[in-house]
């Protein structure tokens, strides 16, 4: 089938930097004085990043609410909240769980809140594969656009780990012809492919070779040329190590599982914003693998 190219026209990031303290995100300043205080932190970050992305992309007025979509990856975004709820239940205080918090036992309530904030009525989807949920969200947004399920999609990740990553990154995605027709600034494109490495098989030489062949096939599908810089975000598990070995010259950024699926999305947002090509590779101990090929548009301004 003929697939329309999907491009990124807006980028929003709200992330805790190493130098930031606990109070790095001020809800009132970033989101407003009412209606946000009791939402989970991962919801705060997502709303802030999405608003920034939408503003950067020139707003959403070009797409009616029914043509807007949001696809959000989150794998540890509600961990601290779940811990609080469980402790309350075990202490016999389950009835004291905040009514504002209770709906968030379902992780997709985060994307639901985003939908209400930006009038997203096309659909929302929440992807939760360990480590790669954010890149899966970008892939799912691209597919939905190509199949005509929406005209604009917000795609990204949000996480909130007490001792790990905190923040969100959101990309505004749309089909290139429509983006150009409305005069949007096009950062470039990002194509994602995913795979799986069965941990026990990959730990053996035969399985590792089979995985390497699968990675080669994905690289062919993504049309990655050998000179593209590669950023490897793989842990030191059997799967992570096997994937990392396929890219011996790459910059290796070992992730912390507590970072969830946010860092690979930041890994594609940065080269898009800087106007350069990049291949982002991520793999996790349970077997999920994703490759994202960023191709920045040339001859356009960068932010």
């Amino acid at each position, binding site marked *: 089938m003929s697939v329309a190219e999907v491009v990124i026209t807006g980028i929003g990031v709200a992330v805790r930097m190493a130098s930031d303290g606990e109070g790095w995100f001020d809800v009132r300043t970033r989101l407003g004085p009412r209606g946000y205080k009791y939402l989970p932190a991962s919801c705060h970050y997502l709303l802030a990043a999405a608003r920034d992305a939408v503003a950067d992309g020139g707003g959403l007025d070009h797409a009616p609410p029914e043509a807007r979509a949001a696809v959000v990856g989150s794998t540890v975004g509600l961990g601290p909240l779940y811990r609080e709820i469980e402790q309350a239940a075990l*202490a016999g205080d389950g009835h004291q769980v905040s009514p504002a918090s209770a709906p968030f036992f379902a992780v997709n309530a985060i994307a639901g809140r985003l939908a209400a904030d930006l009038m997203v009525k096309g*659909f929302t989807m929440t992807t939760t594969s360990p480590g790669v949920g954010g890149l899966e969200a970008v892939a799912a947004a691209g*597919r939905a656009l190509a199949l005509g399920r929406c005209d604009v999609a917000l795609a990204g990740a949000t996480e909130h780990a007490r001792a790990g990553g905190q923040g969100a990154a959101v990309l505004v995605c749309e089909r290139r012809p429509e983006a150009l027709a409305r005069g949007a600034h096009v950062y470039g494109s990002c194509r994602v492919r995913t795979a799986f490495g069965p941990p026990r*098989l990959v730990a053996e030489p035969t399985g590792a070779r089979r995985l390497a062949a699968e990675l080669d096939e994905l690289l062919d599908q993504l049309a990655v040329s050998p000179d593209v810089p590669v950023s490897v975000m793989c842990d030191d598990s059997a799967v992570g190590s096997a994937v990392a070995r396929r890219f011996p010259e790459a910059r290796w950024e070992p992730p912390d*599982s507590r970072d969830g699926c946010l860092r690979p999305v930041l890994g594609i947002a940065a080269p898009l914003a800087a106007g350069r090509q990049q291949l982002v590779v991520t793999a996790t101990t*349970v077997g999920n693998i994703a490759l994202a090929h960023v191709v920045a548009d040339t001859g356009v301004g960068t932010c």
Partner: protein
Amino acid sequence: MTDVVVTGLGAVCCQGAGVAALDRAMTAAVAAPPDTVPDKGAGLRIPLMHRAPDIAATGHDAGRAGRLAVTAAAEALADAGLTTPHDRVVTVIGTCHGEALPRECRAEGDETPAFLVASAVADWLGGYAANTSVSNACAAGGYALTLAADLIAAGEADVVLAGGADAYSRVGWACMDRMGAVDPLCCRPFDAHRRGTVLGEGAGMLVLESAQYARARGAAVHARFAGAGWSCDAGHATAPDASGEQIERAMRQALTAAPGCVIPHGTGTVLNDRVESRALRAVLGTRADDVPLYSLKALIGHTGGASAALAAVAAVLILAAGAVPANIALEEQDPTCAVFLPQDGPTSLRFPRVLVNAYAFGGNNSSLVLESAA
């Protein structure tokens, strides 16, 4: 558009393991009474659930939800005539709670992801194809099945093992209990006396593939995936938009021809059943009084992320039988839920397609249609 077909089915629920167990239960039309939640420490006010049978660990799964998922996946794959390990089978698994008990048993500070159900299935499958976990709460199975069909339509996959699975979660049950969303008696959608839902455990899996791929390998086709629609209310965190506008839109997207049966989302929650009933009347128009609904949750409880996948399995069984089984008898149908719920015996399927609805917190709405392959 690529023609997508269903070639394999698998199911586990409180009525037993296997599609045959679900089929027998649908024919018998006798609901199992809810079980007591086996977790006294959770302090639930209404500690009810529909518990799936215990299944021994296989070594590939992280916990109870993974075991349910792998059991249903193995049945679906065998039914499709496929074997493990299989390199070309992509997996898309919906789950609301994820692998809840291991998470809840973890030490303080261990924030390893809980969503390990899909990866457990992929690990069992032993292949290298893509694997995705979708967590659109109680509609997760519907989104997973449609995403699977989209992967085939986009040319990214030939064959996809897709569905949903959920097991007991202390956090999930505690929050539903906190919100007053649990019926103290049983799950009785569309009944005038309903007071909420009763959650359950289960897994439903289907093998979806392109018709071309199925034909090439000589696979028996159970049904066609005839259409799907998604929408979002963009409103309240838990309550459906009372206008039903968006759930109506999802149904219209999915339907390309008249349905012979509807398996509604129908949870037993007062407002949800009423809004869905009104939307169905708007979509079905003058046929609304004649199109039978099959209220699956009255039989097996609300299995969360598995519910739409189990409903899809039930839809294929209905298509195969050419008849809609009798619904679990209602004490008194809610007059504000003006839908056709035959309870006296099977009803002939006038049109060979079944509409499956699935809705969720966050205003997520999914509808899909399965059609006879004949």
